[in-house]
């Protein structure tokens, strides 16, 4: 059965505040990126998909099962991996012991098979040589990779990752992309990130969240295409631009609904499309 | 005003102004801690039962209530407030406000429970109805005030300071229940030993080697009040020296090298003062236990 995530009119309220409203989409195998400003509802949506949080409204179907039914929820969790935005670790554990601990909780009860699986996922994230190190001795990037390792246990069919690239250097991010690309052959991978270049390199699909609502849901190519013809370079910032900043070449990169006639148009990036679609107040760099 | 201008402004950059601003912040945090209103409520209830409902026959037994709900609760609040910022240490340690300034502000927050203790003391003095003159044993008006001030106000100040001092040096959260129990048990222990060996000077010295102690003990069979040896006034001085020691120990943690020497000197000076107060408390006041009875009989033990 093909791995799928289906949500319909899902909303989540905290007190009187709606963190997520009317979110609907269907995801299949592949990598989908969640984009949006802080407070847009990305983490809330990811927690709903990870079965960590019930929706206030709407329906969720993961791998064809309803997570609101306890028995089905357990079935889903057997095939789910989750990396939260912030992850604490038990004191005194080594990297290997921590992943081993999570593996036990994921019902890997046979020690030999479990240790083999733990070694596999640690190798996948490049932590084989740090397996015996205490977690407190690991760097921030290594801890993030350790968090990813535990999510990969059992080759999950749904992988939910909240800002997995935080703290990773470019080489580590490249490794992560390779790992996720392999996983996404058969699994549904949903990740949130502020690194638009990671999203561009890794994701086939992007969902833009803003104010708890889905503002855009489509391919990355189409998303970037929204900004075609609307990004140009100039010697001065354009006051009518939605966003404008000085680049490393000394020229100003401007983004607006319409480029002025004769402007030197450039190929838009995913970040340009994001800024254009965000609808926020104009972002202007101070003029020199 | 830009941040640079703030730090160049002679008024804003005065350490006293920064300390005052931080202290106000910490006082608000103290008041908002859930244990504070809980302690006030339980203190009011306890004082109602002990002070207002019946004529007080056991002023010595009074001390358990304010000492616990202001002092012991204060230990817990001071400890948890100090620990609560540990997660942000990396950011706070490079802020212009030094760890000592932040610790000083936390210590000033102890003035909140101290003020409450002072109010409680005033209320007790106004509304207390002793069962008779014998209820205060051999303590005159001045000594009674010193005893109550020590049991109510000084403990309210010292509890949070103890919690802050320990939390500055000890990183693990489970130290708090251990601290609460050890502090309480120590008080019970030393008083118990003194009661078991009433004629022992060593036991007497031990009885006063504590942040809080009894000077009056009510016996029911026969009904009489025992006034224990020692000077309540010098014991109050000892308690205040302990408060100063706690503040100094808290400030010593992570002190910059140039500040260590003055703090060590202060620690030594306060320590000497504490020893002096302790010895004066032990050798002052009554030299031995004296029993007073409702019929006016006075019996030295």
């Amino acid at each position: 059965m093909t791995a799928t995530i289906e949500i319909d009119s899902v909303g989540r309220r905290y007190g009187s505040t709606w963190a997520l409203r009317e979110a609907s989409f269907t995801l299949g195998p592949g990598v989908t990126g969640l984009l949006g400003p802080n407070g847009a509802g990305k983490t809330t949506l990811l927690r709903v998909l990870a079965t960590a949080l019930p929706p206030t409204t709407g329906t969720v179907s993961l791998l064809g099962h309803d997570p609101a039914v306890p028995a089905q929820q357990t079935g889903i969790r057997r095939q789910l991996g989750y990396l939260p935005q912030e992850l604490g670790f038990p004191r005194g554990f080594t990297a290997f012991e921590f992943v081993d601990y999570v593996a036990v909780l994921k019902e890997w009860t046979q020690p030999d098979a479990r240790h083999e699986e733990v070694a596999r996922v640690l190798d996948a994230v490049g932590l084989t040589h740090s397996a015996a190190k205490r977690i407190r001795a690991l760097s921030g990037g290594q801890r993030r990779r350790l968090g990813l390792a535990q999510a990969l246990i059992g080759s999950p069919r749904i992988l939910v990752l909240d800002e997995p690239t935080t703290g990773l250097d470019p080489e580590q991010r490249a490794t992560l992309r390779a790992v996720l690309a392999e996983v996404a052959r058969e699994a549904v991978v949903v990740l949130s990130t502020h690194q638009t270049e990671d999203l561009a390199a890794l994701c086939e699909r992007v969902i833009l969240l803003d104010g708890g609502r889905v503002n855009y849901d489509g391919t990355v190519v189409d998303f970037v295409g929204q900004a075609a013809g609307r990004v140009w370079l100039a010697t001065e910032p354009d006051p009518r631009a939605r966003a404008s900043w000085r680049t490393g070449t000394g020229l100003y990169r401007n983004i607006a609904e319409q480029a002025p006639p004769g402007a030197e148009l450039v190929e838009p990036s995913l970040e340009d499309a994001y800024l254009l679609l965000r609808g926020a107040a104009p972002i202007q760099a101070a003029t020199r | 005003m830009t941040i640079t201008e703030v730090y160049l402004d002679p008024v804003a950059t005065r350490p006293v102004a920064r300390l005052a601003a931080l202290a106000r912040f910490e006082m608000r945090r103290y008041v908002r801690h859930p244990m504070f209103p809980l302690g006030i409520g339980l203190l009011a209830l306890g004082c109602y039962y002990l002070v207002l409902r019946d004529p007080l026959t056991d002023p010595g037994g009074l001390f358990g209530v304010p000492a616990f709900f202001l002092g012991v609760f204060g230990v817990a609040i001071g400890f948890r407030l100090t620990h609560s910022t540990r997660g942000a240490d990396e950011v706070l340690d490079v802020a212009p406000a030094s760890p000592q300034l932040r610790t000083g502000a936390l210590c000033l927050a102890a003035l909140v429970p101290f003020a409450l203790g002072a109010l409680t003391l005033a209320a007790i003095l106004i509304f207390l109805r002793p069962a008779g003159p014998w209820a205060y044993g051999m303590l005159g008006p001045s000594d009674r005030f010193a005893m109550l001030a020590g049991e109510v106000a000084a403990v309210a100040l010292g509890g949070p300071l103890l919690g802050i001092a320990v939390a500055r040096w000890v990183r693990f959260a489970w130290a708090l229940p251990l601290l609460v129990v050890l502090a309480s048990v120590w008080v019970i222990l030393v008083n118990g030993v003194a009661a078991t060996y009433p004629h022992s000077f060593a036991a007497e010295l031990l009885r006063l080697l504590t942040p809080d102690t009894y000077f009056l003990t009510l016996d029911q069979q026969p009904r009489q009040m025992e006034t224990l040896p020692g000077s309540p006034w010098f014991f109050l001085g000892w308690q205040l020296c302990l408060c100063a020691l706690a503040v100094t120990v808290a400030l010593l943690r992570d002190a910059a090298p140039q500040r260590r020497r003055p703090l060590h000197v202060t620690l030594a000076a306060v320590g000497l003062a504490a020893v002096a107060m302790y010895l004066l408390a032990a050798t002052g006041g009554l030299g031995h236990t004296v029993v007073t009875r409702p019929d006016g009989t006075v019996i030295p033990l």
Partner: protein
Amino acid sequence: MTAWPALVLLRAVTWPAVLGLTAGAALVGAVGVALGPASTGSAPLATAGALLAAAAAFTMDEPSAPIVDITPTSPVRRTAARAYALSIPILAGALLAIAVHTRDPALSPTALAVAVLGNTLLGFAAACATRRRLAQPGGPAATAITVTLVAAPLLNPIARRVQLFPGSPPATLSSNTWWTLATASSLLTIAVSTYVRAGKPYA
């Protein structure tokens, strides 16, 4: 679940807190035994019990709760595995009870056992009840229980009515009554809170 995986789950218990507080209980209890009830009453032994409760409260701390709570292993199994850690404070309490009974053979061993068990289960129950909302309930639960149990023998209005350690026959009756009630309430709390977490989705 085989024994080995349970041991792996036990590894995640906050052992420094459990062992440290149990050692503190042993120390305070030893002082109470050494001095005997004539000097200090039952207060040191009652407060030693409070530290056993505090130790039990720390057994449920889970720093990795965001991922642990969405694994297929149910809260019932996870709680059961962590309950093995209670053997440490219970063992220490049992040794203390033996020491107390040896010093004072008139004290009922049953009453001592009830007090030890009641303290330990009370701490565990407080942690289980708050685990749903707090990933690491040990600190707040231990503080609340310790403060409450220490207050009881110290504060006259309560101390006259509530004895938390067996001594004279009236004290033993009071202790047995309170700790039997506490044990029953704790077991109910543990069962309800754990099974609620297991039975309700997203719990």
